[in-house]
């Protein structure tokens, strides 16, 4: 698999503070990777280095083999900042046109129409940014990040201002982008959302990667729950592999087995375990 973003030994120091302390992370082509961690873990710093807003103190970050921050790399990314603002006097359509010019996109009106449709802002195409709700502005932000069809999308808390319906729209959009082969690095606090859409999850703590894998890989076995004629019995610590043996033992003991549930930890539990309940 081609690597859309390759981060190796990335370091960033702000005075005495190590925001990033040697992070290794890769985002493959068409892969959707979620970046998790408490506030101050270094997630936004990593994303900002990847898009050239912040210079690393050490290590490397490559966007499709181009040095992160170089013009070549910036041609290949779309970015939505956590704290962003667009000039209030631009309409949605004008803002996308501005970014088309800056990226050199030749998509024209068709691209703008498609992007506004994708984020469900077709009706608001002529509305000024200052007349939009925060949620609409955030969806417009995602649309501007997609201008020029970048192969890598860096999204820093893209759903923080969205209501449940807006979040669902973005989730569907992310799945659509993955199906188009676009790579996404998603920095989010919403664990359920990350669990639902991400192929892989990386958890940062104090500038270090403390856990990485697919949501199912990160989910740890918690036990097996078996429903019998005597009621529900929980075999704590048992894994999926233990289930047939446990069922056989119960049947041999004359019990009727009606159902088996493999218990695994949720991403939230895995996350809390990884960060030790830390918050900023």
């Amino acid at each position: 698999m081609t690597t859309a973003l390759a981060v190796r030994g990335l370091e960033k120091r702000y005075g005495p503070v190590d925001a990033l302390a040697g992070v290794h992370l890769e985002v493959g082509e068409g892969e959707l990777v979620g970046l998790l961690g408490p506030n101050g873990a270094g997630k936004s710093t990593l994303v900002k280095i990847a898009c050239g807003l912040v210079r690393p103190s050490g290590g490397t970050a490559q966007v499709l083999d181009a040095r992160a921050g170089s013009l070549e790399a910036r041609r290949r990314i779309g970015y939505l900042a956590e704290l962003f603002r667009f000039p209030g006097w631009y309409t949605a359509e004008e803002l996308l046109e501005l970014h088309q010019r800056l990226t050199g996109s030749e998509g024209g009106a068709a691209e703008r129409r498609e992007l506004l449709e994708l984020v469900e802002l077709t009706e608001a195409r002529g509305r000024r940014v200052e007349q939009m709700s925060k949620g609409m502005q955030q969806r417009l932000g995602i649309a501007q990040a997609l201008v020029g069809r970048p192969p890598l999308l860096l999204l820093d808390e893209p759903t923080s201002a969205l209501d449940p319906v807006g979040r669902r729209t973005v989730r569907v959009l992310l799945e659509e982008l993955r199906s188009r082969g676009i790579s996404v690095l998603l920095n989010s606090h919403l664990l359920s959302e990350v669990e639902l859409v991400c192929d892989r999850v990386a958890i940062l703590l104090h500038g270090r990667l403390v856990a990485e894998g697919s949501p199912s890989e990160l989910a740890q076995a918690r036990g097996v729950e078996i429903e019998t004629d005597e009621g529900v019995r929980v075999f704590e610590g048992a894994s999926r592999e233990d289930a047939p043996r446990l069922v056989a033992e119960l049947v041999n003991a004359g019990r009727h087995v009606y159902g088996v549930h493999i218990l695994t930890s949720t991403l939230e539990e895995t996350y809390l375990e990884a960060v030790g309940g830390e918050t900023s």
Partner: protein
Amino acid sequence: MSAVATIVGYGLREALRRKVFAVVLLLTLGFLGLYWLANHYVFRDVDDISPPVGIDARTFAGAFMFGLAMFATLFLGVVLAVFLTLGVVRGDAERGLLQPLVVRPVGRSTLLFARWLGAVAVCAPYVGAVYVAAMLITGLTGHWWPDHALVPGLELAAGVAIVAALSLLGSVFLTATANGIAVFMIFGAGLVAGLLGSIGHALNSHTLQHSAKIAAWLIPFEALYQDGLRQITADTTGFTGFLLQLGPFGGAYTGGALLRLWAVAYLVLIGILAVAGFARKDL
């Protein structure tokens, strides 16, 4: 080149949307109205004045009034330039306006240059228009015209362009408020240095003259303004010319081709410092 044009357009649109533009226009109209009134009364009464022998009252009044108008033009131009550029880097970054632009495949130097160009595209025509309006008011009311009309106007516009560049440089390192204060303090210091230079010449104080000369080279927008003042009465001789040279709105002692070359080099230097600072800045 198209990125420069796009960002210049972005800056121009921002300028037109800002309230400062409307405020400066209102101030300008107010100034021109008052300036016309002042000219009307000065030149109505100037023929009744019996000046000392060797002084042409009309020339003195015209040059003095127009010198005052040049100061006001420079001041209004500087207000506009500063308010259009004071928050371009750090201010816009803190508001989250800059990041979506910087991540685009546009060099940071291109972005800075285009923002400066956008500010100059607004300020230079503005300064030119106010300068010409003031000249017409004095000329039509008092029948006095500057000895050289074109170069002083261009020098005022160039002075404002330098202030815009200084403000852009400041915006890389300072918050918008701190930058605005800093640039206006530099502007004020430049004007004080110019006045001290005039006093130094009047008193024949070498220390004051030397200090004013150093200040003029350190902040050449002031020197350009002074050179413009010198140009409007460059051909005025005799006692009238001597009196006008004493200032504050009629004479100066720094100027010429070297100053203009230095002003260009100064702009380049400011640009290099701004680009170097911006390139190293984490956003």
